């Protein structure tokens, strides 16, 4: 049994290492673009427009949007890393290397998800460093901040995995990020407090899971949030359990992988 567990651990760390090596190898596609995009957000929204907006929830606009921008970078990158890496493996057929091997499905899923989360965290760190050029960030609740970052990255990496399982073309890999993920992120309270919205739209916003992540993360750093932080943890953990179960079910069925 110990031998089997050890084999699983080696297989898991092999997948994670390969995923990290992949996004570091293609850093110009994976690490540089988010750093540039987020710098532009800070310059345009934070510096140029933000100076005219004034304070939000008692913080300068730059301070207010910084946690949201960092979180946006984390979830986008965690998602797209798994979606593109796993789909490429399908497209080039090298997913067969894993499928013929004795690696159980849950290890395959865990390896890709942790690999994707690693890119999310890596990019999150870069964007945090960029944000420090523009504003001061003092972490109020370190435990909440770290756990929210990790859980959000895991949740979106799981989403990316399911997307890649279903995808039959590169177009289908980009449909979800373009038409679902981006609107959810922009409407998830990255750039504003939902208290500014009419009540109806505030209620609609509460259906957006990204709102909970952004606000809980903002609470960790600034100490303010539009929603109860406990609810954010409950929702994200609920999503993680549901997405994990669904991804394992799809892998067991062989959806998108085998006839």
């Amino acid at each position, binding site marked *: 049994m110990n*031998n*089997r567990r*050890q*084999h*699983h651990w*080696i*297989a898991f*760390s*092999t*997948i994670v*290492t*390969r995923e990290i*090596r*992949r996004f570091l*190898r293609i850093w110009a596609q994976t690490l540089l673009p988010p750093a540039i995009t987020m710098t532009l957000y800070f310059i345009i929204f934070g510096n140029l427009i933000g100076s005219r907006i004034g304070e939000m929830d008692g913080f300068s606009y730059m301070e207010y949007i910084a946690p949201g921008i960092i979180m946006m970078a984390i979830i986008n990158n965690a998602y797209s890393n798994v979606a593109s890496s796993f789909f*490429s*493996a399908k497209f*080039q*057929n*090298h997913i*067969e*290397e*894993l*499928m*013929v*091997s*004795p*690696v*159980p499905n849950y290890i395959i899923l865990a390896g890709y998800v942790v690999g994707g989360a690693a890119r999310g965290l890596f990019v999150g760190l870069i964007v945090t460093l960029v944000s420090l050029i523009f504003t001061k960030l003092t972490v109020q609740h370190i435990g909440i901040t770290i756990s929210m970052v990790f859980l959000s990255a895991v949740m979106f990496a799981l989403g990316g995995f399911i997307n890649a399982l279903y995808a039959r073309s590169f177009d289908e890999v980009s449909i979800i990020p373009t038409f679902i993920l981006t609107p959810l992120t922009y409407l998830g309270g990255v750039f504003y407090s939902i208290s500014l919205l009419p009540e109806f739209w505030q209620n609609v916003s509460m259906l957006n899971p990204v709102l909970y992540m952004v606000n809980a993360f903002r609470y960790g750093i600034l100490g303010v949030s539009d929603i109860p932080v406990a609810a954010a943890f409950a929702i994200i953990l609920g999503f993680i359990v549901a997405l994990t179960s669904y991804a394992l079910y799809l892998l067991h069925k*062989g959806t998108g992988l*085998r*006839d």
Partner: protein
Amino acid sequence: MKALTIEHLNKTYRNGLEALKDINLKVEEGDFFALLGPNGAGKSTTISILTSLVTKTSGSVTIFDADLDSQTELAKSYIGLVPQEFNFNGFEQVKHILVTQAGYYGVPAKEAEPRADVLLKQLGLWEKRHTASRSLSGGMKRRLMIARALVHNPRLLILDEPTAGVDIELRRSMWVFLREINQRGTTIILTTHYLEEAENLCRNIAIIDKGRIVENTDMKSLLNRLDKETFVLDLLEPLTDSSLLQGIEYHQVDPTTIEVELQRQEGLNDLFTVLTERGIKVGSMKNKVNRLEELFLTLVERPESVE
């Protein structure tokens, strides 16, 4: 012990195609086994089921002591696969591909690296170990797939058309390598379109056609069934007088080439005695087609026409 036991294996694809129909097959441990058949006969489906790339419809597969359904991990750990198509990450370096593959089988990197080094040297890929795999030549890619399949020391090596598109020199060197692997105890199952390859390497053989096993025996018995062979003789001087070959069943291809068909019980000595007596000098001789090929064509149904 049996390295592979297949019982009542069936596969029907979603489009209704019955690819395998009640396949039963046993391969002994240590064997070098050929699985032959025309295109679309079911060879690749069989291999894909053994390696979990395709889900079977019914039947059972046992690899050594492990049932593929109930002891999937153990069964899979015994197998090394060399697939027909290149299927590695073209952007990864050659050595990384091997070490990563070993990791999937629970081999730690510090153990996998020296194993990878040995295989890369044996297969002539050492100089390319830090090269992205997409930059390799076709022959090198084939060898890389063999190295990858062997890096976790499998007990059963399955080779699906391993020498397709490989030049003769390289093919021969791969045969030597595979024989050595087999002599060291690895059971090998080979599918190939080069029947000469199967005849040279394999001790036992199964022929599959239209999803059914039409023949399963040892190579020697199968070849013994061949009741006649056709030989091509290159003559040193043009044959101008056909009466010289009276009594011999032959076909003249050109002035210096004849084809002679001999029954199995007829010896070659008699033919050469006659030729010598009649002053016909033979420069060289070869089989018209490979012996196994001749039998193969009698065992499988050929398409009525090829456009």
